[in-house]
């Protein structure tokens, strides 16, 4: 039914965890995003998150803020995003998740926005500023259009609330690993492993758990997965590669970094 669900089932059979990679659509430019997607697919990424940039990304740290700002300045918009997704879909059936902020959906109308991106080939949506209490219209629109709603939880989310959020989530549940915005962390603290274990216990196998915000290398990925996560989500580290790579090398560089991360998701 859902490409995301199928992917997690396939990985389970293979005894692997998922590598989810995040890119900002239109960064470093439209061509660059396509090359990066190719590199991710060849490098073994399991799911790709595409960020539709917003002018005021208040859950994001400096790397994604900067990428969003530059993508918007180069003219990225909804129409271009949709055609970029269509183009990617011609090349690959990899699950594609759209991450953006609530206002862009609200402005188009939830139904219209969701049906357009679904038709283009998006499988799920992540909105970091969409709280449980405000989510009814969005979730209804997503259900009507058969698209997954991936909600976020945080290390300070109570078990009772995790249960409620898991109930309206599909595809996977996104655990924010740290108190902070997106970006690279030097080292994870104890509370991150506690949060993963706690969330796994509460959701009790009902939905896969992805962990992101701050995961940037294979060692960190292993720590996260050893604590029970079903997926690691890596964003800023990929964008940092794009920051300094000339176009003709993007595909190869992204591929080799993805390969290293993917290895961490395969149990020996």
């Amino acid at each position, binding site marked *: 039914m859902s490409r995301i669900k199928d992917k997690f089932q396939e990985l389970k059979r293979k005894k692997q965890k998922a590598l989810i990679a995040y890119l900002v659509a239109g960064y470093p430019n439209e061509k660059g995003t396509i090359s990066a997607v190719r590199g991710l697919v060849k490098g073994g990424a399991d799911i790709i998150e595409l960020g539709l940039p917003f002018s*005021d990304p208040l859950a994001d740290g400096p790397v994604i803020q900067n990428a969003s700002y530059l993508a918007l300045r180069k003219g990225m918009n*909804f129409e271009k995003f949709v055609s970029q997704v269509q183009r990617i879909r011609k090349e690959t059936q990899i699950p594609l998740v759209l991450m953006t902020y*609530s206002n862009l959906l609200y402005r188009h109308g939830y139904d219209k926005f969701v049906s357009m991106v679904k038709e283009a080939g998006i499988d799920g949506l992540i909105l970091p500023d969409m709280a449980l209490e405000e989510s009814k219209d969005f979730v209804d629109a997503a259900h009507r259009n058969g698209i997954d709603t991936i909600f976020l939880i945080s290390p300070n989310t*109570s078990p009772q609330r995790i249960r409620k959020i898991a109930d309206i989530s599909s595809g996977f549940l996104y655990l*924010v690993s740290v108190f902070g*915005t997106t970006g690279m962390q030097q080292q994870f603290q104890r509370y991150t492993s506690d949060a993963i274990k706690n969330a796994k216990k509460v959701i009790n196998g009902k939905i896969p758990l992805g962990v992101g915000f701050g995961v940037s290398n294979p060692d960190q990925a292993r720590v996260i997965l050893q604590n029970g996560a079903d997926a690691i989500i890596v964003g800023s580290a990929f964008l940092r590669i794009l920051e300094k790579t000339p176009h003709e090398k993007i595909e190869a560089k992204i591929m080799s970094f993805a390969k290293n991360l993917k290895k961490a998701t395969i149990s020996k």
Partner: protein
Amino acid sequence: MKLAYPKNGKFGEFGGRFIPETLVPAVEELEEAYLKFKDDSDFTSELDYYLTHYAGRPTPLYFAKNLSKAVGGAKIYLKREDLLHGGAHKINNTLGQALLAKRMKKKRIIAETGAGQHGVATAMACAVLGLQSEVYMGYKDTQRQKLNVFRMKLLGTAVHPVKEGTQTLKDAINEAIRDWITNVKTTYYLLGSAVGPHPYPVMVRDFQSVIGKEILTQMKELEKKSPDSVVACVGGGSNAIGTFYPLIDEDTDMFGIEAGGKGIKTEHHSATLAVGSKGILHGMLTYLLQDKEGQISDTHSIAAGLDYPGVGPEHAYLKDAGRVKYDTVSDNDAVQGFLMLAKQEGIIPALESAHAVAYAMKMAKKMPKSKTIVITLSGRGDKDVEVVEKYLSENVKNKG
């Protein structure tokens, strides 16, 4: 029409709580503390003490005889929030929230500021109450309000210039929210306007409602009736909602004045309610200045404190309900209001408040002498003299 404590923070369809999950426990903790203390007699009497003896309340309601005569029409009164400690209404809210933060055992306070008035008021409240404070301010605003940056530093506050985005108030709020997400356990976010996720719009309104309550009492003493009209400037809208809310059930016409900048047909203004559309920003559903895709627009106003692409959700509600009329005043007219009040009454208003002055002058002309208008003079204009000087010299140049 008065919504004392709207369920889930919803003013009709506006308001609410659109925030990253990390902030949910913090906002819930804040709401719980606010509900616990807002009517607690120890809390209210401590706040009253500081408002009276530290900030200088009640502020006068001054009959602007010269201005009224020069304009020729209704009697114009000025609610002198500019006389408060720090020079603006902002201290009403910062004292309230800082006292609440203390009761919540939060020792680190963060705030955003546009013109710098909320930053200064935060710095003052934190200094006197023994709290540590840090203020985010758009880089562009730090350049045009240098005096306030230095004042904050003198008061012991660290000022962080924000170089992201448009480098103004909205970006300062983004950065303060990012700090809050990162330091959520230890930090209290002291938001300065009636915006943001619930319960901020309600709480800030409540702390600012002292303005409207005093206007009502003072007008009943001076004129034996509530005012016929009140006028206040609207950026995020804290002085305006503090003025309007206690008067909602009175027979008073209310006017909220936004920054018309270089004209609302240009792209250089901050007239959110006049020409904006509904959207979600900074945790709330409200009117926004945005493009057709939902990207937030760059705004402009000669008054840094009005330079914001959103507006408090209760204003959005009062606009749609038709209870308050929202209109705009251009940069140029605001400067004329600024000059007129200085010349006629010897009062230099903040450029933000000068928008309300300019609008009230136009209104007063068309009203009989028996009618009254109260202008909320939200702040004093010392911070703006350089900006006005520059504006005047450039305009003379342009004409020459």
